[in-house]
């Protein structure tokens, strides 16, 4: 049985705003938002990147012109954001690869109050992702702007 295309009127739906906020939820809910943002951000960068690096085929002058253009501080900062976004997306992505296949979530526990759920039982994993991503972004910051 197929669901009718517009299964319901969308009045009172949170819409795209609901990707970012739908209530006072915990950590994983916002990791979802950030994962989506960074994924789309890196994809956008990749498209521009393929065009930018393709100038190497026109020889040294064209390449130098491109690199000179991209040396502007705004692009440098953009490159940093891409790196930080990538670090988060990769780390969180590894967590998602396991958890979206049902690993690192534990077994179904007996339904006895107070209830527990797999994601919260494994919250340390999500926490580790955040810590490692912050460390990675910090190291990249030092590499780029401080050292």
């Amino acid at each position, binding site marked *: 049985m197929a669901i009718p*295309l*517009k299964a319901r009127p969308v009045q009172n739906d949170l819409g*795209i705003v609901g990707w970012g906020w739908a209530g006072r939820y915990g950590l994983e809910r916002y990791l979802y938002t950030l994962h*989506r943002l960074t*994924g*789309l951000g*890196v*994809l956008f960068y*990749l*498209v521009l990147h*393929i*065009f930018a*690096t*393709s100038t*190497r*085929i026109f020889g*040294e002058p064209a*390449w*130098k012109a491109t*690199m000179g253009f991209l040396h502007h501080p705004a692009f440098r900062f953009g*490159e940093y954001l891409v*790196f930080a976004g*990538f670090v988060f997306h*990769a780390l969180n*992505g*590894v967590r*998602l*690869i396991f958890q*979206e*296949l049902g690993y690192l979530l534990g077994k179904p526990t007996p339904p006895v109050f107070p209830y527990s759920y797999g994601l919260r039982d494994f919250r340390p994993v999500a926490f580790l992702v955040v810590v490692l991503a912050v460390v990675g972004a910090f*190291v*990249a910051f*030092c*590499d*780029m702007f401080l*050292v």
Partner: protein
Amino acid sequence: MKEGLGWFFQLFTGLFLVALLGVHMLGMHMDTLLPRFGMGYKDPLVFQEVLKRGHAPLFVAFYVVFLGLALYHGFYGLRAVLMEVWASSRTLSSINMLVWSLGLFLFFLGTAVSVGFFLV
């Protein structure tokens, strides 16, 4: 095609991208700290370095595989995002068309550049 196979392949490519993009990012981007520990490139973006890599068959193969996996992974993700914004079977075929044509175009462009650069 089975919907789930496409999804599974996105996870699969993600796993490979950790290694491929990890190496690429460390080599291309971390050009201050890594050389101090005797790793990576000092000036990865000067043309002589680009030329050297571009004429190494291993690098060319690396780039073509990397390009394909990254494009598949990213555009499959974009497809999921778009289909959650415009949810209907009519828009789904447009989204599929858009994602496939953009992805294939970029794949051929990138491959042509990598291979062309190797040959010149």
